[in-house]
């Protein structure tokens, strides 16, 4: 066992920290909770791309750096620690690029991977539908073959990406007669095709980071199909393992953690035993979560999709984030209800934002209930029925 990092990795982490500190010093952005998923900043993504930090784990022949998932974890861990606005490239870097590397055609790799790596392709995820959440395979969006194209009709919801996204990743039904898991295919399509309409959704925090996306007779060339027709659901399951794998599930509201510790010290609340106890317990749980996620990266470095391991770390970590938000609200007391930029709002309003925003953490990318099912059935071998 070795819980340390190589000299190169330590240097890389320092380099990332230095870059992010300079960014903040220049006033390019302010550290925020949920910035990885909500703060779309194409200029930031461009600067990250210039350093070669998008597609770090992809093979060199496709323009990646051929590095490991531990290396990527160092990078993303620091991005999250600093609350950096990485949403433009996060999804493509985390899961779509890898999916293209595994299942894409040569043409797709040539066209899409360099665009992602250059920080130009921002890909929103079109998986959930109003009637297909945990039971994703029941999705109804249809893709019907028509000559050299597919015609897509249906609705996706909770699609990330604001107005910046220029591609959609899409799961659609290509064989309505097959069993529901076996009639679904994956597509990556330009976001500006005729017939696509996005309507921003306002979430509980008042943020417009997600969309309902409607597809009305959208004509998509067949070359947009990823991998094998009707095998899309199985491919997507792999992708979901990657979607759940990362540090963003533990550190989505990390800026709040630092801020609330600082607040506690500054306001002489350290000796209040409940607060002291709660914050120390959070620190313990945070460090344990970090280790669970490092284990997941090591699984990926072995070349395996991190199935039950990522289910474990994601369910655990989002519960931690929710506890953090609740504990922070208790620390600030009555002031916790003040939102946004109010001059009276402590910790920059992060506690209130996170208290509301973290409710969704245990729902995104697989509810904690679904994840515990996966861990029990796939990880521990318990019978599925």
């Amino acid at each position, binding site marked *: 066992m070795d819980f340390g990092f190589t000299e190169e990795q330590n240097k890389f982490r320092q380099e990332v920290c230095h870059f992010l500190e300079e960014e903040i010093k220049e006033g390019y952005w302010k550290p925020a909770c949920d910035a990885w998923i909500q703060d779309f900043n194409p200029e930031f993504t461009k600067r990250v791309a210039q350093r070669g930090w998008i597609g770090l784990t992809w093979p060199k022949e496709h323009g990646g750096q051929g590095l490991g998932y531990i290396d990527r974890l160092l990078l993303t861990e620091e991005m999250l620690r600093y609350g950096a606005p990485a949403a433009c490239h996060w999804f493509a870097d985390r899961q779509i690029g890898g999916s293209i590397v595994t299942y894409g055609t040569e043409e797709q790799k040539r066209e899409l991977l360099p665009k992602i790596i250059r920080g130009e392709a921002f890909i929103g995820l079109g998986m959930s539908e109003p009637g297909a959440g945990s039971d994703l395979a029941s999705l109804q969006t249809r893709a019907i073959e028509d000559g050299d194209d597919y015609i897509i009709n249906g609705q996706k919801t909770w699609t990330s990406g604001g107005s910046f996204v220029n591609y959609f990743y899409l799961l659609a039904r290509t064989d309505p007669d097959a069993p529901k898991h076996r009639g679904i295919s994956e597509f990556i399509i330009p976001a500006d095709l005729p017939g696509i309409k996005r309507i921003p959704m306002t979430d509980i925090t008042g943020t417009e980071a997600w969309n309902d996306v409607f597809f009305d007779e959208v004509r998509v060339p067949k070359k947009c199909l990823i991998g094998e027709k009707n095998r899309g659901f199985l491919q997507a399951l792999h992708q979901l393992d990657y979607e759940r794998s990362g540090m963003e599930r533990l550190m989505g509201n990390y800026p709040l953690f630092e801020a609330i510790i600082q607040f*506690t010290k500054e306001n002489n609340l350290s000796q209040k035993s409940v607060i002291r106890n709660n914050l120390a*317990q959070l620190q313990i749980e945070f460090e344990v979560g970090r*280790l669970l996620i490092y284990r997941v990266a*090591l699984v990926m470095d072995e070349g395996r999709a991190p199935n039950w391991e990522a289910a474990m770390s994601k369910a655990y970590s989002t519960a931690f984030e929710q506890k953090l938000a609740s504990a922070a609200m208790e620390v600030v007391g009555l002031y916790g209800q003040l939102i946004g930029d109010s001059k009276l709002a402590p910790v920059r309003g992060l506690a209130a934002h996170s208290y509301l925003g973290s409710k969704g953490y245990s729902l995104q990318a697989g509810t904690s209930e679904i994840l515990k099912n996966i861990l029990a059935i796939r990880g521990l071998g318990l*019978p599925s029925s």
Partner: protein
Amino acid sequence: MKLTLTEEQEMLKKAARDFLADKCPKTFVKEMEESETGHSRELWQEMVELGWTGLAFPEKYGGGDMNFLDLAVLLEEMGRACLPGPLFSTVVLGGLTILDIGSEEQKQEYLPKLISGEKIFTLALTEPGYQNYDASSITVEATPNDGNYVINGIKLFVPDAHIADYLLCVARSKPENGITIFSAETKNPRINCTVLKTIAGDKLCEVIFDQMPVPKANVLGQLNQEWGAVQKIIERAALGKCCEMIGNIQRVLEMTVDYAKERKQFDRPIGSFQIIQHYCADMATDVDGARFSTYQAAWMLSEGLPCTKEVAIAKAWTSQASQRVAALAHQIHGAIGVTIEHDLHFYTRRAKAAELAFGDADFYREIVAKEMGL
């Protein structure tokens, strides 16, 4: 970063598991709990021959030249088997303390006897009263007397003192900030030892020192040293208990999952019910969290890195996790799990003892709070 064992450690693990499965069935554990000594000389000798007492000590004292991380693997297997006896006391509390703070002469004197299994060691640290493992809790006095010392007072929860040949006694040698560790032979008539009846049947003792003379040469390490040296002993012991606990809860998880697959109610295995699946998922998460946090601290200790915070995290987490795992295991096992015929009680009782030993979760949360600058 790497979270897997080396080939050598895997071999040690397998050898230990096979050996203990054979030599330490629960019938044996029960027998030892009910016996006066709580251990078998015969098994002790076999473990000595396997090199377990010497594993973590340098070759020049007759040891196996391995480190704490290797020892952690063995301790985990001991926890899995609920192994009774003085191996933990002798090696973790006694031997590693001597190795850490003893003079070369003392190491030469004690370690070969310890490694060869000839002598059993333990540590007399805690005392009556609701204490917190800090310097102020040490009231057993060592009074200078003609260049030597006389020790007076009561130590409590001293493991295996009734069979130990040597006690390392943490005593107050100066009213303010003067803690000294003495080694003492237990055959001294001025030591009175009583085995306490405990939840784990693990032979914790009350030890009374009644004007016991100790030669100056028995001062281990420095006279009147800082609490820091004792703290290091406590940290290592706490971490050792974490290793035992992960062996314990890993086994409990396996037993519980197996039971959930086999036990049928309403014509289906109870493990097919989602609530049982989620209980098991929670248990597995607790076990893995305990494993990684414990091994992280063990790795740091082996590498000689400062690890006060990491040990605190490991002991706080593992202590609480062990209690959650035990509670869910009982809930899933149902009524059979609370009978004395079923093996589960061995684990539940030991998990409670280990949770409390060398600082519980509360104690270590406070250390984490300090490390955070709170």
